[in-house]
């Protein structure tokens, strides 16, 4: 097994307001997926429990499936429903 992975997690718009922060460093065991990251965040309690259980997620700026395995140093953004245009 490989060592733990360190994930730079980003929050925007309503998620950022909800959590009171735009960025968190999260450590996860090797092999952790996008889903595992979201679960880890929600298990922190408080405002984190209000995060959706399957938010849209971008890994290194690409929309990514919840089953994708994360790598050390990945930048993972939780993306609220978008409203550009």
């Amino acid at each position, binding site marked *: 097994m490989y060592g733990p992975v360190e994930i730079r997690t*980003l929050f*925007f*718009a*309503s998620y950022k*307001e909800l959590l009171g922060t735009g960025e968190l460093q999260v450590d996860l065991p090797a092999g952790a997926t*996008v889903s595992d990251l979201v679960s880890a965040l929600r298990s922190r309690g408080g405002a984190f429990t209000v995060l959706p259980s399957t938010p*849209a*997620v*971008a*890994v*290194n*700026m*690409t*929309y*990514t*499936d*919840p089953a*994708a*395995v*994360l*790598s050390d140093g*990945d930048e993972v*953004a939780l*993306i*609220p*429903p*978008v*409203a*550009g*245009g």
Partner: protein
Amino acid sequence: MNFTAIVREAIDPAQVLSLIGADQDGATLLFLGVVRDHSDGRSVGGVRYETYEEMAAQVLSDIVEEAAEAADTDRIAALHRIGELEVGEVSVAIAVSTPHRAEAYEASRYIIEEIKKRLPVWKKERYSDGAEEWVEGRAPDAASAPQTDGS
């Protein structure tokens, strides 16, 4: 050469038009998204756009390249403004020029529809009564872009 940008300054339609066009083009189409004074029956005084800027720049470029390939043109400019906007100000500008008009309409519509689906931009409306609210948007689909397994 196509052009895309996430900008903070006011968008000037004439300047956007100057970015495109070539002697072989018979059609130019400029779409402007404008802040309007109402939303779902509420009176709107202004809006604030936030973005995940590095990703938005990449996604906007991807969308434009997809449209450009389909329309066989490299004369597309697309800009999205972020920050505080008043009613009547331009939030998005999409200019396309092509030899024939059908391709220009198709490319223009494709780009604005994909922006609404995929561009990581969020809009908070400021209502006349002083309240503010994030506009309920659309959940982007992981399938809307090439998937990576993150490894």
